[in-house]
């Protein structure tokens, strides 16, 4: 198959020298057809799991255990959706996830936009080192931090009597460790790309630093702020390790952990409900992505390349 894809392009290279435009465009057409052909194959590969989630979510347990064609629904039903959305437990997970994510977004953006402005524009002793430090902390994964944090939280309980373990609001302390360095890093990049003349003009006109930030930098860097916000939300919504390690009671769980630990009970897998729960859990990031795709992609490429 790969040979066939190469063939039309290689043959075209030679006639391209002669003024034979017919074969050139024919060759383009073939390249286009092969591109679409492979894109369809890759799209099937990339979209198959979510599609399969959707199919399964429409099946009753009876239909699943009857082991009919897994890729087709014989008698579609919304019973999984109704059951989950009338179940207090699932709604609790959803509520916990929503509150934690929204607050993490607010905390993260407040800390990182202000700090990024200071680091990108106001330069103080050690600010360049700190900017590098922010980038390094962005590279430290949650899997390295969860054990010492676990122990630290136990120590806080022993010393101050504040129980941080097994509360959903604890996650609002934990998630910023992942989101703040990333958001700050993106925002430093965006702020640095704003022309110096803008804030100099503002300062000459007598604006304070805070006014320069709110009246000039935030409006100009708004696309970057939106990108960072979307990212922070997505990371907070999807985080799996911290809630798994730090929360255990069902009333304190967030969505990903809630679905994995409560809907999978021992060897009894209620797959219709699990797939429905996972699909509904994936919905908020997917909806945001559908509407703000360009910001999402801008943030994705900025995170790794801006510097």
């Amino acid at each position, binding site marked *: 198959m790969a040979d066939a894809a190469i063939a039309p392009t290689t043959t075209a290279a030679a006639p391209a020298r002669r003024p034979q435009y017919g074969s050139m465009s024919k060759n383009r057409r073939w390249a286009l057809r092969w591109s679409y052909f492979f894109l369809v194959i890759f799209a099937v590969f990339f979209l198959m799991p979510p599609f399969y989630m959707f199919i399964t979510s429409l099946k009753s347990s009876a239909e699943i255990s009857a082991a009919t064609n897994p890729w087709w629904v014989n008698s579609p039903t919304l019973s999984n959706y109704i059951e989950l959305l009338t179940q207090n437990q699932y709604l609790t997970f959803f509520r916990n996830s929503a509150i934690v994510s929204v607050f993490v977004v607010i905390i993260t953006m407040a800390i990182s936009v202000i*700090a990024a402005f200071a680091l990108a524009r106001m330069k103080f002793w050690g600010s360049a080192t700190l900017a590098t430090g922010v980038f390094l902390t962005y590279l430290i994964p949650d899997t390295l931090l969860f*054990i010492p944090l676990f122990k630290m939280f136990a120590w806080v309980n022993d010393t101050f009597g504040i129980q941080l373990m097994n509360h959903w609001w604890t996650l609002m302390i934990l998630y910023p460790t992942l989101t703040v360095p990333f958001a700050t890093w993106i925002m430093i990049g965006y702020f640095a790309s704003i022309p110096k003349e803008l804030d100099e003009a503002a300062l000459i006109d007598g604006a304070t630093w805070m006014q320069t930030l709110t009246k000039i930098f935030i409006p100009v860097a708004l696309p970057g702020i939106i990108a960072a916000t979307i990212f922070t939300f997505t990371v907070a919504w999807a985080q799996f390790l911290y809630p798994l390690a730090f929360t255990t009671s069902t009333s304190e769980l967030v969505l990903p952990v809630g679905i994995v630990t409560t809907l999978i009970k021992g060897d009894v897998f209620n797959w219709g409900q699990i797939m429905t729960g*996972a699909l509904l859990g994936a919905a908020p990031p997917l909806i945001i992505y559908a509407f703000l795709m360009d910001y999402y992609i801008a943030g994705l490429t900025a995170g790794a390349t801006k510097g």
Partner: protein
Amino acid sequence: MADVAARGAVRGSGALTSDGRSSLHKLMQRKSTIAFLMALPLITLIAVLVAYPAGYAVYLAMLNKGMNRFVGLGNFGFLFGRDTFWMVVYQSCLFAITAVIFKAIIGFVVAHFVHNIPSKGQRKWRGMLLVPWVIPPAMSTLAWLWLFDPSYSAFNWILEHIGMDRVAWLGETGWARFSVILVNVWIGSPFFMIMYLAALKSVPEQLYEAASIDGATWWQRIWYVTLPMMRNIIAITALFSLIVTFANFDIVRVLTKGDPLNTTHVFATWAFRVGIESGDIPLGAAVSLFMVPILAVAATFILRDITKRGSEV
């Protein structure tokens, strides 16, 4: 750092009340103080919740299980003597390296196909192909878990219908290792695709025109034009992905929990098993610390690239 800033603050506020001699100097003083205060929440957060725990992990790793006695490198010695540990090292490297290579290849290929089609349709395809990256990994891994189900696997249903044998996707070591890598490639390759697509768009069209006038073949154009132009972005994306993949937790945890017989455990999942589930926090910390060398190497290379580009600008 705090001292310098505090002194600055005192002097700055003093200068405010009196009519200072050099207003520029005054401004600079005030500026650095305000800047430091604005960055203070960030500094506090990083110091308390990232830097301190990272250092604390090293100390923790040198305690005994009851955390009341200092044992030095005892935990590391204990790990080196265990077969499971070496299996985790092997599997972590296999998992990360194989997955990153395949993600890079698939991302590169798909980016080319998207780049080939008329720009009108590119947005739609790009949007569709990025979906795996947007779904929370724990959720999409659940879908894969169901696709790999021992008795109801939808893949096995297809295999049986085309006359092939069923596969124990998560039951046999080889297949289970294949499966966790497959899921990681599925989640991660859209990221590579987006990065490479952005890089492809920045390659000047004239270079390709010049190449085809010189009679370059399809392969020569990729080898002598595209790859050299994209070298930087290819390297940095791969390094980023290497860090994230090496520290991956969600996929293995949801898909296999390390089974069969601990053969699919990576550092993160094994550290969780040992540290949190079995309650041996120091040993878990010791396991997770083994991620540091590779992270440090990758981080050094990324930083070097960034400072290099910074000085070019």
